């Protein structure tokens, strides 16, 4: 199940004290999910004993974030057989690597988003992904074309 800001919000102090630099706990929850903030930025959570249980729970539900890349993308290697569908289907590869991944070959550009190493998909350069940065869009092309659901996104 993808993680939602709401689930995170429910476990925060909900005081909107702004110590984290955000206006509200809800907006902190959003940024947390996008990995623009760290849990440690919410000082009250750590300083006040009454939040101990909530903090523990938060750490638990945020675990997948550690594995995920900056775009919220997770690759389950054990489900991947290196078919390359995701690499060739990715619109960024098509545009930037028309003589490599765009026509089905292994990527020829220096820093593709993905490539296959030792039979498994690895992420080389997430910065090219459309889900990255300020103007990101919620592209799901690679996930949609993986026959074994080896690719997933945190935000669904």
């Amino acid at each position, binding site marked *: 199940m993808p993680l939602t800001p709401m689930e995170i919000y429910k476990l925060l102090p909900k005081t909107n004290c702004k110590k984290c630099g955000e206006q509200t706990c809800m907006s902190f929850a959003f940024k947390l999910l996008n990995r623009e903030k760290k849990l440690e930025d919410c000082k009250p959570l750590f300083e006040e004993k009454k939040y101990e249980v909530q903090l523990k729970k938060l750490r638990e539900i945020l675990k997948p974030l550690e594995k995920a890349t900056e775009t919220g993308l997770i690759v389950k290697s054990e489900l991947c*057989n*290196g078919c*390359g*569908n995701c690499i060739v289907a990715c*619109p960024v590869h*098509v545009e930037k690597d028309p003589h490599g991944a*765009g026509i*089905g070959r292994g990527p020829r550009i220096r820093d593709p988003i993905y490539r296959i*190493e030792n039979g498994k998909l690895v992420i080389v350069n997430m910065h090219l992904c459309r889900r990255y940065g300020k103007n990101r869009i919620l592209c799901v092309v690679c996930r*949609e074309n993986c026959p074994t659901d080896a690719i997933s996104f945190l935000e669904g």
Partner: protein
Amino acid sequence: MICTGCSCLCEDIEIQDSKILNACEKGYKHISRFKESKAKNRVYGKEVDLDKAIESAVEILKSAKSPAIYGLDTTTVEAQRIAVKIAEKLNGYIDDNSSFCLGEFVEAILRKKIPSATLDEVRDYAYVLVYWGTNPYHSIPRHMSKFTYYPRGKKRNRGYDEDRFLVVIDVRRSETAKLAKKNAKFIKVEDDLELVDSFERALEGKAPKYDVAEIAREMKKADFNAIFGGLGLKYGLRGNYEKFFSFLNKANKFAPLYFIPAGFHSNMRGFNETLFEEVGEVNKFSFIEKRSDPNFSFPELLKNKKIDVALIVGTDPMSSLPFDVSEKLYEIKKVVLDPRETFTAKNAEVSISSAFSGIECGGEMVRSDGVRVKLEPIEKAEIDDVYILRRILEGL
């Protein structure tokens, strides 16, 4: 280098900082494990040197009353040619795995009974792509990403969701079937012959039993469509190949439709083509009777006790043939040529250790669509199939 993990023969494999790039997992395992569990030179269970092993192999073959040569699908065209000469010299049988794999389809293509095309043409021009009785995700993993559905091609440059129409036919919703979403169709087939009928009717504008009218319409829109047929199609036709071939030809009156075998061992098509060049048949051939016959397939020869010796090259029939056939392997003498210590090699009268084609030695192979590929090995083994087979031939 070229990957010889399957009949896609992907040519874009690179090795960088001891990482293998671009090969799928199947190819990676194939390439990276070539040093593991190497076969030994053995005669009646005792380890010997190569000369002794070849000598014993020649002896056994010479004393054979009715020998067969079998396998040859993972070796090079050069080795296949010598194997054909050995079979001729011995007046024996020669067969590969294609007799129970996609041999009938390759034969029809070589005899020009059905129209075929190359995978590069498919990438550039094909619109409707039909995967029939095959799940490329597991058998030929990069087929769809490298050649058919996903890559952009000359005339198909707008991407899979607009420029291709994907059809997946299977008895179950396979991994490949899951990809049939937009501009696509999955057909759960119970009776392949009935489905062939349905396609014919739909193309003629009549009501079909299976829901294929949309597919027929899409085919008529395009100037290039392709069917990739696998073992599910072969066994689903229950021997009625002619019906399928005639459907392909009829279909071509309405819209160009090409057939390409979906894929198999790295050089199975090479075997079919090599034998076809030499004797005009693609498999299950007898040099005594100078003809091909269903009864001359390796499994049938074993079942009917027609052979007493087999020279087995690069295949492991003890694990890859059904039990009622594999148990018969015990009644004949086996000379096995393989880089890997297989079950058959372990139980053979003579086992000779060879090299992995494409990794340790070069040569030529033929891709599933008939394109010839020069291998680019990363090592240079002196002792390979060509060397060993040549010496056996000289010994005879």
